[in-house]
């Protein structure tokens, strides 16, 4: 019996010939993040297993808004020095970890990475098994190993041709709205098909990023020339694309024809509440805040599309639009390309790269009864601040168009 991508990668990292769903394996892990260094120190361990393979950046309260947060980061800097962590990115040279770590070559096809933060499924865009380890990231720091239950694999086949003004965000909101936010629960999801190939790397990245929103352990794409183009100059070790065997076994296979897809929004409460935005138009949902940011949708082409829509226009007087690029590298590229100037002229507030607004931390928390249209990943009650606020999820184009209109609109009206 053949193997899926996840089964191949897990088997290779456990040093066994085959891996089957349900099996428990201790695997060698290629890299992790530094979040649990304090736990390592508390256990009395004086060395990490490999300081070259530990990456760290402070992104959630960056830079610190409170003394308590400042002390926490100060403590982390001490640990970074003590454990001689090589890949540490200070404010101004960092950004949101999923973007920053990728820019610095942490992920390559065939890798197995377990790191902190739930959106670690993002790394699956690089044809790798990348997932969250939280408390047990300390086990990786100490031993370079972690246990895995080999997940069942499911295949999502994205057929057709993606229409203009539909992007990866619309695809994942559509898929989650039909399959529910638990179709990937404890599973490895492989995204394949013509639309998977058609999508840019950044669009696929959004789909992998929201893998965790459908419960997935891994959210993997196949590797191709777009994967290699991004990794070129960033990853210097040899790697090979991993493909599933033709006779690999999947627990389920879901097919979508996306040729008729239209821009989507997810109603407040759950990322699976996706509906076509044209169906919401008549409700005239007033927007207080438009957020273009997060590890989900704040890459260069996301900023580019927003700039194109906002070029020569103004953000609605009753709306504040917050823009936070996914990394400082992206910030610099967007600056050079003129996108940030366009956004500034339109009246948007351009922030540095941070997780702040997305998780309701700082730099744009919502008040009672406010409504936000957001390019981020979660619209749970209370996610972006007040439990009485409403968060709608959408693509960068829909966020930008709604910022102009002051209500949730179809971006195709604003092109």
């Amino acid at each position, binding site marked *: 019996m053949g193997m899926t991508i996840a089964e191949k990668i897990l088997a290779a990292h456990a040093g066994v010939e085959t891996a089957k769903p349900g099996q428990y394996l201790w695997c060698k892990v290629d890299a992790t993040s530094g979040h649990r260094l304090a736990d390592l120190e508390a256990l009395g361990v004086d060395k990490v297993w490999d300081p070259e393979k530990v990456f760290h950046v402070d992104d959630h309260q960056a830079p610190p808004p*409170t003394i308590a947060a400042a002390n926490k980061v100060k403590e982390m800097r001490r640990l970074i020095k003590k454990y001689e962590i090589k890949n540490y990115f200070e404010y101004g040279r960092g950004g949101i970890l999923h973007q920053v770590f990728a820019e610095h070559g942490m992920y390559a096809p065939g890798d197995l990475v377990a790191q902190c933060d739930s959106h670690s499924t993002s790394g699956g865009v690089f044809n790798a098994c990348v997932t969250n380890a939280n408390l047990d990231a300390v086990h990786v720091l100490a031993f370079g190993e972690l246990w895995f239950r080999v997940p069942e694999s499911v295949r999502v086949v994205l057929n057709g041709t993606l229409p203009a003004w539909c992007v990866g965000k619309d695809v994942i909101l559509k898929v989650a709205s039909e399959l529910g936010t638990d179709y990937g629960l404890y599973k490895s999801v492989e995204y394949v098909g013509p639309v998977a190939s058609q999508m840019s790397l950044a669009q696929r990245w959004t789909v992998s990023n929201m893998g965790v929103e459908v419960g997935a352990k891994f959210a993997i794409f196949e590797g191709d020339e777009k994967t290699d183009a991004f990794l070129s100059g960033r990853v210097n070790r040899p790697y090979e694309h991993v493909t599933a065997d033709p006779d690999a076994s999947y627990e389920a296979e879901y097919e979508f024809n996306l040729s008729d897809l239209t821009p989507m929004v997810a109603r407040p409460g759950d990322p699976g509440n996706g509906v076509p935005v044209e169906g919401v138009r008549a409700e005239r949902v007033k927007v207080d805040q438009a957020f273009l940011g997060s590890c989900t949708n704040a890459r260069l082409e996301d900023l580019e599309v927003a700039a194109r829509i906002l070029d020569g226009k103004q953000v609605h007087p009753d709306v504040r639009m917050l823009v936070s690029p996914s990394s400082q590298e992206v910030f610099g590229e967007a600056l050079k390309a003129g996108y940030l100037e366009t956004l500034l002229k339109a009246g948007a507030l351009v922030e540095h790269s941070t997780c702040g607004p997305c998780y309701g931390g700082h730099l744009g928390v919502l008040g009672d009864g406010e409504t936000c249209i957001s390019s981020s990943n979660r619209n749970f009650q209370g996610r972006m601040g007040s439990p009485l606020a409403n968060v709608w999820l959408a693509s960068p184009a829909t966020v930008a168009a709604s910022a102009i209109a002051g209500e949730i609109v179809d971006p195709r009206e604003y092109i």
Partner: protein
Amino acid sequence: MMETVRTGRVWKFGDHISTDFMMPGHRVLANPDLTVEEAAKFCMEANRPGWAEDEVQPGDILVAGINFGCGSSRNGSQSLKALNIAVVLAESVSRIHLRNAVNSGLPTLVAPGINDFVEEGQRLEVNIVTGEVKNLDTGATLQAEAWEEGTPPYEILMAGGLDAFMKTKLKERGRISA
């Protein structure tokens, strides 16, 4: 060693209870100097105000629907444990949350059918090793999914959590002194 058989009164929660509910970002992540106990006071604040502060009692059992612990990787089990929840039973549990629960030493069992099996306020007896669940009010029984003996999550849970498991392993490998 873990206490194997646990009895308690049931609180029922619905489907897709996210870790944002258990550990609200604007309360907990934004305030890193909160103690574990202080953070736990905000548990379920958005969906069930007052529950953590006034209603839940040590030894109670939490029963939930599908996809319990979805969303963020923040350790919701830490707050549930601080509230002295004895056991969590859910129709299904998110992967990240399940690992956090094992690592925190909070028995969290996938128990298909649990939603219809018990009403809020009834008492359950749960064997966390075998997965046997008994409704002490109705006498009915249900089989939850037990961790297979010898698997890593079983070993970690039985050790009382990741910390104790790691200490033993580090000593065995000579990384810390015995």
